[in-house]
């Protein structure tokens, strides 16, 4: 617990490291911060084209919102996924990237991973705000759902942070981790109902055990939660709440435990 107290005392450093990540991200690019918007926008355009136009994907119909718009429906899932994906993949090599700091200055090492995750959280939050205005453009006022969205964002952040702590620490010892996770993320993307409906997966999987296993995917819960709140405009079912809460707590505890276990020898192993 002294470690936690120290982190709280030095929270200002966490802010500054996060700002460093954010400032460094688009330095020396002509478009600067516009890239943080252009990337997801182009991704949404491409995915809409491919999965809706060419492959004939259909969105869920929002209940009670009545929305039937593939792009909006896709975006809710895609932005959620992007936060987990970028937060994790950018953070895993972060200890290696900051090895000069780890070897020369003392400060809570968790901050390196956390600042990277937080910098992607900031990106995610900006994207969510832009998304709210998208909904407004399509005649949907979703601002009243923001408090609940924030709770899910907080839970997802803890979930990503836990995974990032664990894998970034492991990556110090085994540099394969980052490549392995890269492949795993591709698979995870298609195992999560982002470009297809959850119902579609349930139709395709015939055994009850298979459906249960499919439903264990924590990202499925988060994607459902944001779609419920923003697209359908309803409170997510209790199972979603509990699932997200449970998975975020477990992820953080396990991730932090692994990190703390491996942390003492970082300076030597890097």
């Amino acid at each position, binding site marked *: 617990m002294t470690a936690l107290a120290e982190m709280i005392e030095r929270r200002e*450093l966490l802010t500054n490291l996060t700002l460093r990540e954010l400032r460094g991200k688009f330095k020396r690019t002509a478009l600067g911060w516009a890239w943080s918007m252009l990337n997801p926008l182009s991704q949404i355009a491409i995915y809409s084209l491919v999965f809706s136009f060419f492959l004939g994907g259909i969105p869920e119909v929002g209940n009670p919102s009545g929305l039937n718009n593939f792009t909006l429906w896709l975006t809710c899932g895609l932005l959620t996924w992007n936060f987990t994906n970028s937060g994790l993949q950018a953070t895993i090599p972060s200890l290696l990237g900051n090895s000069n700091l780890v070897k020369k200055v003392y400060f809570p090492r968790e901050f390196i991973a956390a600042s990277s995750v937080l910098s992607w959280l900031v990106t995610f939050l900006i994207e969510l705000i832009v998304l709210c205005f998208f909904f407004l453009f399509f005649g949907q006022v979703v601002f009243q759902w923001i408090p609940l969205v924030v709770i899910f964002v907080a839970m997802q952040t803890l979930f990503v942070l836990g995974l990032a702590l664990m894998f970034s620490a492991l990556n110090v010892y085994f540099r*394969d981790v980052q490549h392995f996770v890269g492949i795993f993320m591709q698979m995870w993307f298609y195992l999560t109902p982002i470009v297809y409906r959850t119902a579609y997966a349930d139709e395709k999987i015939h055994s009850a055990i298979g459906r249960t296993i499919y439903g264990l995917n924590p990202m499925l819960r988060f994607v459902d939660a944001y779609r419920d709140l923003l697209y359908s405009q309803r409170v997510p079912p209790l199972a979603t709440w509990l699932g997200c809460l449970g998975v975020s707590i477990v992820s953080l505890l396990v991730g932090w435990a692994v990190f703390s276990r491996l942390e003492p020898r970082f300076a030597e192993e890097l």
Partner: protein
Amino acid sequence: MTDITEVAMNSAPASITNKVQTNRGIGSNAAPVIVVEHVRKKFRLYHERNNSLKAALMRRRVAKFEDFWAIDDVSFDIRPGETFGIIGENGSGKSTMLKCIARILRPDHGSITTKGKISALLELGAGFHPELSGRENVYLNGSILGLSKRELDAKFDEIVDFAGLSTFIDQPVKNYSSGMYVRLGFSIAINVDPDILLVDEVLAVGDENFQRRCAEKFAELQNNGKTIVLVSHAMGQVRALCDRLAWMNHGKLEMVGPAKEVIDNYLGDVHVERFRRGPGAEVRWGTGEVNIDAIELLVGNDPTPVLTVRQGDQVTIRIRYSVPGAPVARPVFGFAIYRSDGVHVTGVNYREHGMVPEELSGVGSYDFVVDHWPVFTGTFDLSAAAQNINYTQTYDWWQNAVRFETAPGAFVEAEGVLILPGEWKHQVSKR
């Protein structure tokens, strides 16, 4: 690095070093601020490093390694307000010790307890982001070193002034010269205002002017009662700055005590061991009509050659020669002394003293006697030569034949190369 540091510290104004030695009251009874207890730290020396999962799985174990004890059962206390040095040769574990105190490394056994805010100057500008401006990096680096935004706001101008970078502060640091980079790093680190400052051989930074300001800042920290732990193998620096020293040797603690005592023992040990084998810089050439058989340093009436002399000693430089063949007409012997950093201290031959013999044969020696050795502390190389009267022929030239050490003697410590053999007089023109 060492040599530069030594020069730099030696050239610091005498007033600074004197202040350091006189103005500080160190509470010898006060509770220590750093307690190192039976610390052991092992490193793994990997024979085949598995940085990949595949390698680890294939071999069904993590990796082959051998344990190496970088620190082996070391204990000492550091008291508040003192400047404590850790000395030792390369690989003695002194930097590892400092990193353990800084909490960058964690000991495998034993404990280190510290009281107060610690700042470590291990690498200057660690954590600078090349794309960010100097200003942004001051805030970032300061924050990494433990300063709050408010403290940084208050100190910002001082930091920038001290680094001498006012005009460049909004440029990205990747455009800085390495000197500017390090100066900014030093300036931030020194302004952290810690209770305990850990320093690892980083004082050799910047130009002479910056060096002097560093020395002043250092003295100021000492005067303000800050505890400083310094790792160095620049004996001049250590002697000038430290109150007490720990001498580490192959991971073990050899000795802890007052600086002077430890340095004397350290130099005695290290130099006897190393220099008897002959220094690597030794170069010798000549036609061989006259041979220099040995060059010896003698103190007082003791006939045993030494390698450490003290300021103020009566020192004899003895050149032993032999002429193997026919007598040689009018040979000239001489010697030169260089400090290890290349400063030419003196060159003496006896032609100017009117001692040149008409003819020399057989075996013998020439002595040059100095009543009060006037050279300041440091490491020196002694060369000797035998040439003909016009210096057109070299019989034997022995470059860097002897490396010796000058240790402080009864003289008051000051800085420079030579102790001028003069005295002070005082005239009052008006009362």
